[in-house]
């Protein structure tokens, strides 16, 4: 058994030699560290942490337990030593002094064995916890509960009397580590402090799991205040949990136990921690680190506190660096060639009106941009995209024409803002979307309806019924006009079909369809020609929080409470891809402008970027301290902005997978983000009733990502996020839940006024 355990320990550490080397030192150093009474014999270092304060009754219990164990195994010398050190009186029963097989004081195998036995003991005595017990099992434990069953005999023996004492050791271990980390050099302290939170959580959970309710509460009370403030939400959940049965249904915690918490620590700091734990034989903590933490070790300078704070905060720690190494083709697809004659004609017409020379070069630049193949762009046919219809081409031409009239925004030319207030929205406005050409606006409501308004004087009309359609002359030029039923013209239409609040809506790029997703677990596709529901996409089974059409139409993405994002095509009733990996609800979903990637934001406070082609997760971005409710891609596809309930907007470089900006200013959850058409301005809308404009041009322009940063992922955020704030605009007591830049760069905002 011992050997088995040792193997486990060693394999966990995977550095057998090192272990052996350190072993002898530890016994010597252990006495030095913080003025504890020196352990007389190097062979029995394990009980020392427990034996330090015999004053506590619980610890005395532990000592007795250890003694009994030693006696049982005929380690009489050790018994003597221990008794002497701890100052325990002889117990009547103990005299079975047989020869100790080897109180080896050196680095011998036997000595190691005993040392290990001792250390194991402390571990075992720490609890018959499954976590501890699983150390005995082969490295990747199949499951905690199962492992608890094949406890070694020792545990069974010890558990009888060690139960009272164990929980207190948790306290000791934790405060010991705390003391250690507080005493290390400043440069390491910030890094090592990262282990506090995961350790705290796991120790607490182990206590809870083993029904040490009072101890777990005490433990929580004592140390929860030390944790970083951005973990407050999780701690609140944690604190409400005090029974083993509760753990079963709590998904958040299940994730915490099954997935490894990722920390990035420099090699120096890591060595320091490891040495400390080993010399103190603090195997309880070591086990947790082995079991539940993934420590991503890097070479070089330890990171600063602010660097760490910027990146941490997610449910499962930071992203591993490997996970952001995949190449992302963030460039834009080549725009299709559109018959220039039509465009030229218009151009000439405009030229006649004036400014003939100004327009030409502008147009050229636009044309060039679309012709050049972006080196970072994916293959044009990397994913199959729908062919352009004639109407799409017309729309593109319109778009180009509008683009020439676009206002160039910047620091000095801020956009005008129009606010669309939804009045009398007693049904509860939950989602808003504009069409790209800003002609239609749709609102999703908590009463399960979707309402569509025409923003232009052109009213919404239905297509005539089949019987009426058969009457019209199909050859006529204005057949598209004739098929519309004039009688149904109205400013708004209501779409009924969902059976729960509508949480997300999205217009198709060609304005023929509308998507809506709802609490009822379905995503519905509506026709804006007939204003009826065409398809209900089922698959999520739980509330769907967000959905969005691909910028090229046809595909769409949805994500919800089931933590899985799905990629659909409008003509398939089953999803084409399922993106699983988030540890909590997916709260928002966005397509990359080139349609090859989707980004999902989640309540686990991470953003993931998925490759539509392969279904792989190519980026995991951490740093938010709250559920992410807004994501926006910059028009050039290179950058991304995300907003969360923590009121911060983070900017990301997709190519390098690193954070490049942290925009502070909002005081409440951010529900919408949008880049201006040329990407110079980022607008953010929040529950705090403001729209804020940020200088995206400056934020991205000053960016220099050196190779070092790119490879290590160490970020250096500019301090001056306030300099990037160009303006704060108060609404009329209306939360901003959607923002949209028109093709001419007028900013439209929308929200429901609720007195």
């Amino acid at each position, binding site marked *: 058994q011992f050997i088995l355990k040792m193997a486990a320990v060693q394999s966990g550490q995977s550095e057998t030699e090192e272990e052996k080397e350190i072993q002898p030192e530890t016994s010597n150093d252990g006495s030095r560290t913080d003025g504890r009474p020196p352990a007389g014999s190097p062979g029995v270092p394990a009980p020392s942490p427990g034996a330090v304060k015999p004053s506590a009754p619980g610890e005395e219990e532990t000592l007795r337990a250890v003694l009994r164990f030693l006696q049982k195994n005929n380690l009489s010398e050790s018994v003597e030593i221990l008794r002497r050190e701890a100052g325990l009186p002889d117990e009547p029963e103990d005299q079975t002094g047989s020869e100790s097989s080897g109180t080896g004081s050196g680095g011998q195998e036997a000595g190691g064995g005993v040392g290990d036995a001792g250390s194991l003991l402390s571990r075992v005595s720490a609890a018959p916890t499954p976590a501890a017990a699983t150390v005995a099992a082969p490295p990747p434990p199949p499951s905690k509960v199962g492992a608890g069953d094949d406890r070694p005999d020792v545990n069974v023996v010890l558990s009888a009397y060690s139960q009272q004492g164990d929980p207190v050791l948790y306290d000791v271990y934790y405060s010991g580590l705390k003391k250690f980390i507080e005493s290390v050099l400043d440069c390491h302290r910030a890094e090592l402090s990262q282990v506090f939170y995961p350790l705290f959580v796991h120790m607490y959970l182990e206590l809870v799991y083993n029904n040490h309710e009072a101890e777990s509460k005490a433990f929580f009370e004592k140390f929860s205040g030390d944790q970083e403030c951005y973990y407050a939400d999780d701690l609140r959940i944690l604190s409400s949990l*005090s029974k083993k049965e509760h753990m079963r249904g709590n998904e958040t915690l299940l994730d915490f136990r099954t997935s490894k918490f990722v920390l990035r620590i420099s090699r120096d700091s890591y060595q320091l921690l490891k040495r400390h734990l080993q010399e103190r034989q603090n195997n309880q903590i070591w086990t947790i680190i082995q079991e539940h933490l993934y420590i991503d070790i890097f070479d070089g300078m330890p990171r600063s506190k602010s660097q760490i704070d910027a990146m941490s905060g997610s449910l499962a720690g930071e992203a591993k660096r490997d996970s952001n190494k995949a190449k992302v083709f963030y460039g834009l697809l080549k725009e299709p060639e559109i018959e220039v004659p039509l465009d030229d004609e218009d151009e000439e017409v405009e030229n006649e009106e004036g400014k003939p020379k100004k327009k030409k070069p502008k147009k050229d630049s636009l044309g060039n941009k679309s012709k050049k193949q972006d080196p970072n762009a994916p293959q044009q046919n990397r994913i199959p995209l729908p062919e352009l219809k004639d109407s799409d081409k017309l729309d593109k031409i319109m778009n180009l024409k509008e683009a020439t009239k676009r206002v160039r925004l910047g620091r000095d030319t801020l*956009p005008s803002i129009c606010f669309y207030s939804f009045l009398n929205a007693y049904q509860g406005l939950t989602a808003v979307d504009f069409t790209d050409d800003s002609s239609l606006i749709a609102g999703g409501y908590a009463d399960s309806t979707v309402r569509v308004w025409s923003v232009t*004087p052109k009213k919404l009309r239905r297509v005539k019924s089949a019987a009426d359609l058969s009457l019209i002359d199909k050859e006529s030029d204005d057949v598209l006009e004739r098929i519309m039923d004039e009688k149904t013209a109205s400013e708004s239409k209501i779409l009924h079909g969902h059976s729960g609040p509508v949480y997300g809506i999205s217009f198709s790029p060609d304005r023929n369809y509308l998507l809506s997703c709802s609490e009822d677990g379905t995503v519905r596709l509506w026709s804006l020609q007939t204003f009826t529901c065409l398809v209900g996409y089922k698959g999520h089974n739980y*509330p769907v929080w967000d959905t969005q059409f691909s910028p090229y139409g046809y595909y769409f993405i949805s994500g919800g409470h089931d933590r899985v994002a799905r990629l659909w095509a409008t003509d398939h009733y089953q999803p084409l891809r399922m993106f699983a990996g988030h540890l909590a609800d997916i*709260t928002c979903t966005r397509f990359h402008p080139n349609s090859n990637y989707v980004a999902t934001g989640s309540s686990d406070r991470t953003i993931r970027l998925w490759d539509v082609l392969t279904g792989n997760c190519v980026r995991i971005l951490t740093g938010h301290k709250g559920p992410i409710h807004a994501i926006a891609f910059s028009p050039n596809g290179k950058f991304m902005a995300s907003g969360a309930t923590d009121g911060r907007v983070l900017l990301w470089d997709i190519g390098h997978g690193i954070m490049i900006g942290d925009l502070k200013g909002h005081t409440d959850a951010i529900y919408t983000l949008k880049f201006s058409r040329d990407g110079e301005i980022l607008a953010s809308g929040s529950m705090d009733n403001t729209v804020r404009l940020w200088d995206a041009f400056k934020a991205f322009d000053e960016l220099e990502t050196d190779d070092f940063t790119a490879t290590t992922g160490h970020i250096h955020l500019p301090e001056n996020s306030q300099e990037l704030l160009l303006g704060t605009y108060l609404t009329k007591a209306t939360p901003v839940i959607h923002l949209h830049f028109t093709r001419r760069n007028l900013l439209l905002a929308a929200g429901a006024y609720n*007195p």
Partner: protein
Amino acid sequence: MADREERRFAEVPRESVKLVAESAGVELSDDVAALLAEDVCYRLREATQSSSQFMRHAKRRKLTVEDFNRALRWSNVEAICGYGAQDVLPFRSIKEGELFFVEDRDINLVELALATNIPKGCAETMVRVNVSYLDGKGNLEPQGTVPSAVQTLSDDLLKYYQQITRAILGEDPHLMKVALLDLQSNSKMAALLPYFVYVISGVKSVSHDLEQLNRLLHMVKSLIQNPYLYLGSYVRSLVSSVMYCILEPLAASINPLNDHWTLRDYAALLLSHIFWSHGDLVSGLYHQILLSLQKVLSDPVRPLCSHYGAVVGLHALGWKAVERVLYPHLPAYWANLQAVLDDYSVSNAQVKADGHKVYGAILVAVERLLKMKALSLSQPAEGPRGSGAWSPVPLPAMYGELYSFFGDSLAVRFSTGPGLGMAAKDPPPGPAHPDTARKMPQLTANLSLSPPLARSSSSSSSSAQRSRASSSRPGQRAAGPSRDVFPKARFTAPPAGGAAPTFAFLIGGRQMGRRCQGRRPFLTAFAPAAPAPPSLTASVPASSSSALSAAALAAAATAVAPPPAPPLPSLPPRTYAHKLPVIGRVSKPVRRWACSHYSLHLPL
């Protein structure tokens, strides 16, 4: 520590659990109760936790009962009903038992269902846009204020309101004119709309004062023409005020000298304006109006002036309204009217005069019905948009039946129509849209008719006679009396004011006849409309714009002269745009010329 823990969460004490268990007939031991209590607490926290997610996604700050129930439902727990009320639930205690409970009163469902009080705050959801910031700078309005729809009145607005109402209802006609013009174009008075609507609803209290009623109606007109106002559900209120003026036996009508007929005509015109320009704001408005008109018409107890109002109202709403309501009702109504008209006693003179008014109104309405129907049948592609669903009475049968009522007085309208129309009515652009053209002749005849008149009179002697006759008041009278009905009308219609509507009718008929199709279909068969040369579509906007200028003229004229001649072209242009496909294909100008050319050879 335990204390702090308890302060952080609501705890359910074991006593409560025991009590609840007891009420369900289960006896629990203390241990079990304590365990249960703890578990209940945890489950509550868990549900609260997940319910907050629903709140976040609904983009709210307030956690609702609904959110909580959703969380319960998704964790397979039955939702808890009965706590969704907006009001705060009273939380009471019983002294003896140290028990707290939420008061749960019985609700009488029958009473609730039959209750007449309409819940407040159920206005239509709408989107309103305002430019908040120009170029990211200059705020048009102070930051952080509430939207204008719910804004409390600023002092400026209040002053504006007082000035406007004073000016409109005051003595000075010039001031009134200015005020109405401003009301028509002011973009910043949206917040005052409810107040103006309230003032207008005051028609019911001034039904003795024709002048005031008139002014209030003008106010309605200004409001509905203001392009910056979103009337929303206030349309309903405006409609009810206007309907009041059309239908009610106003106190002012007791005196036969009062020209309440003009008021009714004007109100009817307004009604059609509201309906055409704002009818889409209130669903089912059209049917409600029809229904109330029908109700009045079918009520024999109502005075004749109310019936008159109903008829002109129907007429103003278009020929389809006439076909749907007036036409089927005519046989029943005819008997009553005939009785009035046939009573030659002196005491009945006044009533009879009113009867003739109604008669005339019906005649005009029916005439247009026939003509429009003929037109619509002749152009199956364009004309009967939506009428396909119901047009049960074939035209000849309808004509036959109507002829049985009106006799030659109907026939003569069709026979004389073309001549009159050709001569007088061609150039005035007003009648671009026949449905709304009813009142227009009055105006055009006065204002802009003379040049065409001269031309037409020179072109054809016979038609010149008629056209001249019809273009001036005396002439109209002269033309009318040739039929047996009109002598009565002339006899009864006392002063100048009374003549006006009649006058309008005649010209209305003319106007139809202008198409030439008006007559020929009845005599022979309906020829399909001439195909529209593409070049002609352009003329429609042109004509409507000139119509607008005529409207401006008219407005100027009416503002000076108290018996207001309501200008047809006050219809906003978008109504025309709305109808464009129809009008464009009809290709009026060509037909007009063709007709006039043709009319020269018409044997009259």
